[in-house]
């Protein structure tokens, strides 16, 4: 026995060791800050790592929120147009393109979620992926096949979960 409650286990620090090369100057800075906070070097580093991960998650959440807001705005802006030029030069669509490579996993995720009724993401993907077009000529215009070609491309070329 002696394994403790779930709560205790959650709070128990892991004994995992991580080795990271740092300069002497950085090490002195870490130790100085640890002394000011009256914590050990390892506690300070663990906290910094935790903050870093949370900040990264926050950034991802903010990107997703921005993408979803622009997506909703685009749907409102584009109306009943049939023109790809008109549809893909709406401010919200251009803002998604302007998000650059960070938008790629979001667009691919959105395209995947749209299943058999994919939306017009191909222009944005084409621009962000620097002119890539994985759709064979014979499949152009067939939205489901175009979507599949891009999803396959993402599997090959991107680290998309």
């Amino acid at each position: 026995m002696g394994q403790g409650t779930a709560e205790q286990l959650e709070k128990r620090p892991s004994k995992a060791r991580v080795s990271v090369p740092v300069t002497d100057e950085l090490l002195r800075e870490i130790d100085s800050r640890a002394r000011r906070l009256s914590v050990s070097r390892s506690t300070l580093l663990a906290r910094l790592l935790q903050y870093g991960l949370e900040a990264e998650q926050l950034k991802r959440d903010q990107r997703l929120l921005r993408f979803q807001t622009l997506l909703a705005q685009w749907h409102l802006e584009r109306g009943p147009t049939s023109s790809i030029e008109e549809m893909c030069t709406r401010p919200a669509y251009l803002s998604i393109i302007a998000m650059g490579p960070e938008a790629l996993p979001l667009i691919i995720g959105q395209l995947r979620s749209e299943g058999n009724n994919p939306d017009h993401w191909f222009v944005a993907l084409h621009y962000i992926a620097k002119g890539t077009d994985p759709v064979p000529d014979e499949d152009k215009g067939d939205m489901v096949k175009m979507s599949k070609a891009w999803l396959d491309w993402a599997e090959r070329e991107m680290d998309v979960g």
Partner: protein
Amino acid sequence: MSGSWAQRDFPHLNTGNCRITSPATNAYNCLAWAAGNDKQWWDPNGLYYWPKGVPREVSLDAVLQVYERLGFTICTGGELETGFDKIAVFVKEIGPRKIPTHAARQLESGDWTSKLGSFEDMSHKPVDAVRGPCYGEVKLFMSRPRQTAADAV
């Protein structure tokens, strides 16, 4: 009538002159639908389908060439003529530019059918019930001898 579009985009549509005939879909657009195709989105953008040999440009001339390749020629009007398929091409004029915006196809009943971008397709009468700020006005009509189902694109 309860489509995906905003009333301001089609101020002349009402419950008495149109009927929704499909769910909203991105699978095809008006240019394809006017040619009887509900499997493709036709657009001059290089990422999309566009008939071979037709300039990939947003121009009335290019749209006319698309339908000429399918046997259509410009005709005088949109009245129902036995034995003929007809389409109407809409244009929005912005300064000197005539921007093609929409195509509608005449049904055997004399009503017209339109696919509204990514929204639904619908039958409507008259043909210019879909005129307005988005599609502009009917610019011209084209016709060809009626195609059988086997001839359809």
